C-alpha cells in the first residue's frame, strides 16, 4: 500500500545528508569537549564550528546559541530560567492561550510555584494581538512568551510587534519558533526577540537536540545544573553528532527554502480548497499568515481519532487535536481558544506537508478523505443527511 506522510509538523525524517554528516562524528569525534587532550580539542572544534554556522544562519552571535536536548527543553530553559533569575524583580508572566504545552504547562507550573500568569486570548483566526499583550503588561511583568508559528493551525503571530513592546518596557521576550525555524527565514536581531527556541527534528535533523538563542546580556538560571558546558547555562556532556546534525539540517533548510516554500504553499492551498468542498467543513487558522505546510480543517459530526484511523488504513499519516489521541477528554486547547465549540473541535484534521510531498499526494488525499468523512458521518448520531 502507498504510505503518505503528512504529519511533518509532528516530526520529520532525518535527511540522508544529515545522517551522513553525523556518522563521522559518531565514529571519530567522541571526546569530551571540556578536555585538554587531542580528542577533547577535536570535539571542541566540531561544536565551535557548528555553533558558528547556527548562529550565523539565525543572525545571532556565536555565544548567543545554547544547544539543548529538545525544543521542549529550550522552552523550559527560557521560561523557567528567566522566571527564577528575575523572581526578585517581579513574578508576572504573559503568554497566549494557544502555546504549545512545552510553554503552557511550564507557565502553569510556575503559577503553582509562586508566579503569576496572564494568558492572552486569540481571535477566530488564531491571532494574538500585540494590543492585547500590551494591555496585559503590569509593573511586575518579567517575561512575555508568545510563539512564532502555531503547531496546530499554522497561524503566524506578530512577534516583531510584540518584541518592540517588550523592549520599550525592558521586559524579556521569548518566542517558541519550533515550527518556523527551517521553514521561514529567521533573523533574531530583525525579529527583536531576546530568546528563541528551535528543534532540529522539525527540519529533517535528528531528535534529541534543540537550541535556544539567548541575546547577549540576558541572564538565566540553568534548567539543568552541573558542569560548565554551554557557558554554564546547560550542563551535560555535549552530544556532538546531534549538534552536527542540527547544524547540517539548518544549513540545508536555509539554502533550499526559496525553492521549497512556494511549492509547499501551492500544495497547501490546493488541499485547503479541495477539503473545503466537503459540506459542513471549517478551515482553521489564518489564510495568509500561515505556515507554508499547514492544513487544518474541522469536519462537523465526526471525531478526530476515528478519522485518523481511517486515513491510516488508506496509508495517510495525519494528526488531530482530538482529545482521544491524547487520552484527555477535551479537544485541542488551541481550537477552543479560537472559539470553536467542543463538538466541532473534536472533528479536526491537521495535514502538514513536507519536502517529499507531491501533487500526487494531494490528489490522493482529496480523493480519499471525502468518502471517509461520509462513512463516519453516516455512522454518527449527530448527523442528519
Amino acid at each position, binding site marked *: 500500500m502507498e504510505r503518505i506522510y503528512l504529519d511533518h509538523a509532528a516530526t520529520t525524517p532525518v535527511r540522508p545528508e544529515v545522517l551522513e554528516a553525523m556518522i563521522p562524528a559518531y565514529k571519530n569525534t567522541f571526546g569530551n569537549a571540556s578536555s585538554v587532550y587531542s580528542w577533547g580539542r577535536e570535539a571542541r572544534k566540531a561544536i565551535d564550528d557548528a555553533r558558528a554556522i547556527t548562529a550565523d544562519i539565525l543572525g545571532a552571535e556565536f555565544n548567543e546559541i545554547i544547544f539543548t536536548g529538545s525544543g521542549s527543553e529550550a522552552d523550559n530553559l527560557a521560561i523557567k530560567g528567566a522566571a527564577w533569575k528575575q523572581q526578585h524583580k517581579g513574578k508576572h508572566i504573559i503568554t497566549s492561550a494557544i502555546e504549545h504545552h512545552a510553554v503552557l504547562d511550564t507557565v502553569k507550573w510556575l503559577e503553582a510555584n509562586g508566579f503569576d500568569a496572564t494568558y492572552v486570548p486569540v481571535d477566530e483566526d488564531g491571532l494574538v494581538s500585540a494590543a492585547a499583550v500590551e494591555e496585559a503588561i503590569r509593573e511586575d511583568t518579567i517575561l512575555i512568551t508568545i510563539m512564532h508559528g502555531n503547531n496546530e493551525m499554522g497561524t503566524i503571530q506578530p512577534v516583531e510587534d510584540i518584541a518592540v513592546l517588550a523592549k520599550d518596557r525592558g521586559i524579556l521576550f521569548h518566542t517558541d519558533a519550533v515550527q518556523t525555524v527551517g521553514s521561514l527565514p529567521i533573523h533574531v536581531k530583525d525579529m527583536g526577540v531576546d530568546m528563541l527556541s528551535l528543534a532540529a527534528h522539525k527540519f529533517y535533523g535528528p531528535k534529541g537536540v534543540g537550541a535556544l538563542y539567548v541575546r547577549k546580556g540576558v541572564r538565566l538560571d540553568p534548567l539543568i545544573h552541573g558542569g560548565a558546558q554551554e557557558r554554564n547555562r546547560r550542563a551535560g556532556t555535549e552530544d556532538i553528532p546531534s549538534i552536527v546534525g542540527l547544524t547540517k539540517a539548518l544549513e540545508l533548510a536555509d539554502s533550499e527554502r526559496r525553492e521549497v516554500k512556494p511549492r509547499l504553499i501551492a500544495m497547501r492551498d490546493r488541499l485547503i480548497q479541495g477539503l473545503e468542498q466537503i459540506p459542513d467543513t471549517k478551515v482553521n487558522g489564518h489564510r495568509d499568515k500561515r505556515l507554508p505546510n499547514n492544513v487544518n480543517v474541522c469536519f462537523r459530526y465526526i471525531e478526530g481519532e*476515528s478519522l485518523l484511523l481511517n486515513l491510516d488504513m488508506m496509508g495517510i499519516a495525519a494528526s488531530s487535536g482530538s482529545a482521544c489521541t491524547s487520552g484527555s477528554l477535551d479537544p485541542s486547547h488551541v481550537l477552543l481558544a479560537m472559539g470553536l465549540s467542543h463538538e466541532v473541535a473534536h472533528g479536526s484534521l491537521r495535514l502538514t506537508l513536507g519536502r517529499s510531498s507531491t501533487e500526487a499526494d494531494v490528489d490522493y488525499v482529496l480523493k480519499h478523505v471525502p468518502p471517509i468523512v461520509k462513512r463516519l458521518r*453516516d455512522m454518527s448520531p449527530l448527523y442528519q443527511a
Partner: protein
Amino acid sequence: MYTDKVMDHFQNPRNVGEIANADGVGEEGNVRCGDIMKLWIKVEDGRIMDAKFKTFGCGAAIATSSMITEMVIGKTLEEAQEISNQAVAEALDGLPPVKMHCSNLAADALQKALDDYKAKQSA
C-alpha cells in the same frame, strides 16, 4: 495500540444504523467529551432480536459499540442486563488503559436502552 479485534470492529462495524419503531433506545455520552452512542433494540418474547447503533467517537468507541450489538443479539433481557463494560473490553481482547472509559459508553447505552424498553412496557 488497538488489538486486531478492535481494528476489525472499527473497520467493519456490525449493525450500524437505526431501527424504525425500536422497542428501546438508549443514548449515552456527550459532545463535549467527544463520544456519543445511540443504541436501538428490538425485543421479542423477552429476547433481543435485533440491535443497531450510531456512534460519534474514537476508534475504541466505535469498536465497543459494534461489539456490544453483537453480544446482545439473541440474549434474554436478563442476560443482556449482565453485560459489563469489562466484558465488552474482554470480548475485544482488551483496550488500551486510556481507552477503558470508552467501554463504559457502550455498556451504559445498553443499560439505557433496556431501561427505555421496560419503561415503555410498563407505560
